[in-house]
């Protein structure tokens, strides 16, 4: 046996021993912090989040995929994934303290419903990173369109993006009350190469993505952005997503430290690409980091 093999065998032995000893030896069950992850639909993000949370041995993680009034009497820290989950919990348990993961847009929309001591992370990433990703990694894009509405919660970000010099040109278009995004995008695609999906669900309802995707691809134009698999699956060709596994690890730490308040973007990101679309249309997506 070579020395490297011996070291490897030793390493495996160490791991096995540690795993074997871990339940009783490392941390007592009674000392674990009880955390309940509540969500409505299973998704790759929920799965990654769950895995991240599970890495912390001081967390006793339970899962509730259909939150209801029973949650109101729970002693666990409730981690609510997604705006629909938050709404459902607060409907059953008003003023429930929650740890929330939801989009910047929806947290703003729901802000009056949330208890003061709730805290959490935005599910999405700042739009500037989506733009940087397009700028650095997508040569197909020379002009990027961004739609926004009056009182859009991301308007400050959009203004900042417009004021920042990029390789790509930015064209921001305001969607007036009652206008249909598909109609506007049909025109907009004639002057831009891509459109950025923001968190504004008034402009970007998921059921309309089929139309958005088809009318873009008809002109060789693409959609980028979005913050979870639903957007990617429905046609966003590439986006900066939150690293939900890392977020799970961070939230576990935050809960144990008990020092979190307010809402913030998470600082670990992934570039997620829709392989099917990028291969079908031969669209090159680079991997340069946006930091």
């Amino acid at each position, binding site marked *: 046996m070579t020395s490297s093999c011996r070291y490897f065998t030793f390493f495996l032995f160490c791991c096995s021993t*540690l795993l074997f000893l871990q339940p009783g030896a490392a941390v007592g069950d009674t000392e674990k912090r009880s955390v309940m992850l509540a969500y409505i639909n299973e998704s790759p993000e929920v799965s990654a989040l769950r895995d991240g949370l599970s890495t912390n041995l001081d967390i006793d993680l339970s899962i509730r995929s259909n939150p209801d009034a029973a949650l109101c009497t729970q002693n666990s820290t409730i981690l609510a994934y997604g705006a629909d989950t938050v709404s459902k919990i607060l409907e059953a348990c008003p003023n429930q303290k929650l740890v929330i993961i939801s989009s910047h847009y929806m947290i703003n929309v729901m802000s009056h419903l949330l208890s003061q001591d709730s805290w959490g992370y935005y599910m999405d990433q700042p739009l500037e990173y989506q733009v940087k990703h397009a700028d650095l990694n997508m040569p197909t894009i020379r002009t990027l369109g961004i739609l926004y509405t009056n009182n859009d919660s991301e308007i400050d970000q959009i203004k900042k993006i417009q004021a920042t010099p990029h390789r790509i040109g930015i064209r921001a278009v305001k969607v007036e009350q009652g206008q249909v995004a598909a109609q506007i995008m049909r025109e907009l695609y004639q002057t831009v190469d891509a459109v950025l999906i923001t968190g504004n669900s008034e402009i970007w309802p998921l*059921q309309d993505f*089929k139309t958005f995707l088809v009318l873009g691809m008809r002109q060789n134009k693409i959609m980028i952005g979005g913050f979870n698999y639903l957007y990617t699956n429905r046609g966003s060709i590439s986006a900066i997503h939150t690293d939900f596994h*890392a977020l799970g690890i961070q939230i576990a730490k935050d809960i144990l430290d008990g020092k979190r308040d307010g809402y913030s973007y998470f600082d670990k990101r992934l570039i997620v690409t829709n*392989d*099917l679309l990028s291969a079908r249309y031969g669209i090159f997506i680079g991997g340069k980091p946006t930091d």
Partner: protein
Amino acid sequence: MSRKTITPLHTALVFALLLVLISTKAVADESLERYNPGLTLADVSLPVNPKKAGVAVTVIDKQMIKASGARTIGDILRIVPGVTTGYRFGHSLSIGTQGGAEEFSRRINITVDDRSIFTPTTGSLISFNIVPLEDVERIEVYRGPNQSEFGSNSMLLTIKIFTAYAAERQGTELSFRKGTNGIKDTYVQHGGKIGDLYISGSFNQTNDDGLVHRADDTHKQQVFVRADYQPTLDDQISTNFGAAKSDIDVWVSSNLNSDDHSASDGTWFLSSTWTHMINDSTYFTANLSHTYLERESEYLTAPVSKAVGRLYWDIGYDFHSTTSEFALTKKFDFVEISGGTKYSHDTVTSNSLFKDKDYELDHNTYYTNQIWNLTDTTTLHTGLEAETSSEFEENTFVQSISLVQDVGMRNSFRIGFSKGSRFPLLYEQESGRKAYLIDKRMTPAYDVYNTEKLDPEKMRTYEIAWMYSSLDKTLSSELRYYMNKYDNMVGYTSVPNPGVLSQTGNTVTTAKNFLNTGTVKGIEASIDWRPTSEILLVASGSYTDVDSYIDPTTYNNNIGESSPSTIFAILGQYSFDNDWRVGGMYNRVQGFNWSNGWKLETQHNLDAFVEKCFGGITATKFCTKLAGSNLLGHQSNFRPEAYSPTAYWMEASLTF
């Protein structure tokens, strides 16, 4: 809190984990995560990527349609490599390609959304129930046999016309066009939403004087409605309805002058498609459509001779076609498989085109195709199709195979082989075209009378192609060499009169199979350049060498004649100051032999326009346009005795 015991084992493990984490940190912080999503509803109507397709395909998008300044669908089709279009009448489009150019486009399949314009009874009903150009969002033209994907008659070309989703056509659009040659067009469109149902409807009216030296003026009114409903995220239902009424004239017998002639067409169609996602890797589409066409065309000639007197032609027919189609698509990691079946039932009634007055035809098509992902860069396309017809004993069966190899992100190569086949039309198998001797107590006198039992046509295509696309997608191009071998084609020939009263005495004209008909070799090239959103330039060219093996004295028409031909087309537009646009299309055809025996020496054609718009994307938009067609002179089409004249028009449009 209990105290954790730190042991050397822990230390070793933590150290090992740290090593792993450090080594992967650069990737983990912002890695490129490849995501393998499932199919979605959008996949049903996504445009094809020519670099990935198993056959040659040209995509004409909305921007190209607008840039061309075209007034009809026929004009814009000229940008497709190797394709030219002509008009025997101002309102009747004929499409020529690959040496198979003839008036009735018998070897071409045209679909509008999911409804096939082609019918096995009468061929492609071009011009009469295609939707208005304003409603067309995209046209995909597949060159060469592609029956395993699109079914019946996708032999030389498959032209797929897509209209816009109703959700994109919200609001109101008005346009009015008036110019020389009797041009006077009106288009009104409005889209709205009723609950979750998006609906868009248009009405258009087109008028022109047609060709010079023809009495073929057109006055057409057309309605088109599209409704889209998405009851769930996994279901999409789209319904199209259209109706058109045309007063058209088809008077051609310039040597038999008479003022007694008229023609009209009335048509309507209803088509509904349901797409359902069974799961992330499987969906099906089901389509049901009905098309009705009533054609009336009658004219009275001057006396042919003292013995014959005057001929009365009544070459109209009533036609119903009901079609159902079902296709299932399943995506696996290594292969995407789709298969489908299509059934059509046609009834046709005519007093003057067929041997009998009434016919009913049943037609079944079964097809499947597969896209095998052999490696990340190599894709194998395979397909099979079979057809049965109540009119013919023999079935058709065709296969296709092609290999697409990506070389880097920019280049792709394709090598392919496919077979094509089609059943003869009812009009070919059962033709009994007759005029009535009005001065002889309406005795029927035939000029076309079928005496042969026809077999399905058969052909083969071999092709090799190179496609290029720049990383930023500003430039794409295609170069293709193909060889079509026509093994068995249906043409027309004179045969001894079987005993009917014939206008030609001892002979009648009949459709007949010609074996080993000919070979066509061609080179096609195209380039699409869009360096900025302001500039668009698309050019295409082809050289086609038709080698016919049939003695020209043994047939009348519908067999390609030996000749080399070249076709070149370029379209482009330039936008400036956000609201000005100039553009147009140039087309040159040389040595093109329509297989009806009509030869086109050289034809230049230039259409151009300048447009000025006011208003923005989300506001009311008003545009004015000055346009002209055939600016280099009259366009001779493919009949020397008549031509499309130079014409100018003004157009105003309002969108709000």
